[in-house]
């Protein structure tokens, strides 16, 4: 860290040159910020995707905000978000801790756990759709009637099936994050705890969990905000059905824009989605607490 020349110290104090961020910023501007304003503009127009774009004041917004389907889509999105988090967070935390240890069999298992991560959402959805078919799927195939439920056609069941499939696909990703986090915890902490007579469970709660605080925040942010973006998997798996049972907000946006060809209303839904996503990310960052600058390795 200590350099003798004053000039290079100045560089370090200011951080690396801001120009390093330029390429990323350009792409970000082109593909995120500008389209965002485009969508905001479109939400005040009426456009069927083909003809002229006509300014139409707030009519798209009133359509969207008074449509019961929007409220339902928000509710479904909230439910999926909640259940996805409840299911995925503990499983991936425990799996991450488990696979972070150095035994060979754990490494072998870890490789197996990561397989779903290699598959595209569409492939996962098509595979599950075939497996869950009540007439030709896994249940009738294996002759196990309890597996032959109408998994994707029963309005009460389908939400949990979707949560399960999403978890199956994304748990490996979060496991990977936790595995990395756990491996960064200094071994000296555990050695000290052992000397003090702490058992495995107590070590987990007193060392692993607190040390993983920021990993948990990162993973949770990705989980919660990511659940606003579940689209491909649900679109292929259920198409939002049966009825409106799995019509998530992004799906509702897509169907409004590209099936019903109402780009104005779809843009309004897009704006709602962006606002909710930003708000959630900010709230989760706040949860990190005030002294985020404090070292995680205090006392290490």
């Amino acid at each position, binding site marked *: 860290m200590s350099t003798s020349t004053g000039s290079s110290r100045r560089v370090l104090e200011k951080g690396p040159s801001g120009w390093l961020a330029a390429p990323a910023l350009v792409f970000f501007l082109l*593909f995120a910020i500008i*389209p965002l304003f485009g969508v905001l503009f479109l939400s005040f127009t009426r456009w069927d995707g083909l003809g002229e774009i006509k300014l139409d004041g707030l009519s798209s917004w009133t359509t969207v905000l008074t449509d019961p389907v929007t409220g339902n889509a928000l509710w479904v999105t909230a439910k999926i978000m909640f259940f996805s988090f409840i299911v995925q967070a503990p499983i991936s935390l425990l799996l991450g801790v488990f696979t972070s240890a150095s035994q060979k069999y754990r490494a072998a298992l870890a490789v197996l756990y990561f397989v779903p991560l290699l598959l595209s959402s569409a492939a996962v959805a098509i595979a599950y759709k075939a497996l*869950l*078919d009540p007439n030709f799927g896994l249940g009738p195939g294996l002759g196990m009637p309890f597996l032959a439920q109408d998994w*994707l056609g029963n309005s009460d069941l389908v939400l949990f099936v979707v949560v399960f499939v999403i978890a199956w696909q994304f748990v490996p990703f979060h496991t990977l994050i936790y595995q990395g986090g756990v491996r960064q915890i200094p071994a000296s902490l555990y050695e000290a705890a052992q000397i003090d007579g702490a058992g495995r469970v107590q070590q987990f709660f007193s060392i692993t969990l607190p040390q993983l605080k920021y990993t948990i925040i990162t993973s949770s942010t990705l989980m919660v905000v990511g659940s606003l973006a579940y689209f491909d998997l649900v679109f292929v798996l*259920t*198409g939002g059905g*049966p009825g409106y049972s799995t019509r998530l907000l992004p799906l509702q946006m897509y169907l409004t824009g590209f099936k019903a*060809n109402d780009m104005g209303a779809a843009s309004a839904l897009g704006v709602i989605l962006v606002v909710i996503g930003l708000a959630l990310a900010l709230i*989760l960052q706040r949860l990190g607490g005030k002294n985020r600058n404090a070292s995680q390795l205090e006392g290490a």
Partner: protein
Amino acid sequence: MVKLTLRSAAIAVTVAAVSLSLAACGSSGPAGSAGNADSATMWGLTGGNQPVLQKSIDAWNKAHPDESVKLDFFANDAYKTKVRTAVGAGQGPTFIYGWGGGVLKSYVDASQVADLSQFIKDNPDVQSRYLPSVLKNGVIDGKTYALPNNNVQPVVLYFNKDVFDKIGAQAPKTWDELMALVPKFKAAGIAPFSLGGQSKWPDLMWLEYLVERIGGPDVFANIAANKPGAWSDPAVKEALTKIQELVDAGGFVNGFSSIAADSNADQALLYTGKAAMILQGGWIYQSMKKDAADFVKNGKLGYTAFPTVSGGKGDPANVVGNPSNFWSISSKATDSQKKAALDYVKSGMFTDADTQALIDSGAVPVTTGIESKLAASPDKDFLSYVYGMAKNAPNFTLSWDQALSPAQGDAMLANLDQIFLKKITPDQFVSTMNATIGK
């Protein structure tokens, strides 16, 4: 630093996630326009007619290398979304595949498709090769914007003769007979009707035929004409009530709302004997001929018209379905693309080889003077039945989701799904749909 990076990373992740979900909607233009940049492009649909179209274009390109057509295929649902986005962005193909109806009208309103009236006038041969009742589906406000390009596709009630023999029953002629069959098949452990409910549009065939049989063609004509309150016609409510009665009686196969018609799982239930009947389009004959060759060849597949409803006003000979698919020519195409396209329409389409290929695949071409060819086909029973059905129908109603505007069509399918699931009542359906009139 930590604070800053974490927060900005989170924001970046958020925005990226959101914009990804938005970006998922935008799609690219035509996939790789290799070869001559100015050659005409054509987007067709995968499925039964794909090899026929491929053959026709291959033959055309071989004979006319200077006016070659570049052909790409897309799956039905994906195509419908993609072509509209592409046309809106000025990246559409020269040949636009369509169904006529409300979608065609939206292209016409946006001046995206060429007026072919003069072309037809100049080429009487083109006009006279089509069945007139089919040709008129490409006409909007007296001008022709689309020409039929394949086969008539009426909706037919198919049944499995084996399972009917097993319980000693006849195909239903009336709605009451149909309802009486339901408990008999259930007692034998066979689902009375297969239904691809997840795809939603197969649900619509039930509503279309019931409204037609109960109230006649005027009911939907009023809806399509956007007359205020047109959905309130008592025939609509009665049809919806009958559908829910059939659902209550267990008429549809277990788990029908998770069966996708796009994967042909609904037909599979019929030919494997798990379901006795299915109400589906004429096109599934083509795929059953391929997927269940023995079943079709051995005459196990029965077909009949949709049953009559007692007291109904509709002529039992009336038909719903798709009169044909159509080619429109993009008005944004270059002159040489347009010329190549029109030349193909004039002399490359419905050649003897094309017509024969369609018939061999188990389809009825929309052309005149094919009776002898149909009679010579191994599928002559089915083909003559469909040809007669289309030719003799006093009224051939276009599938409602195609006839209506896209916004109305989408709302109708979503709400009809709710009817089949018994999540809403017929009255709720009627009032929701009345609110979409004019949209």
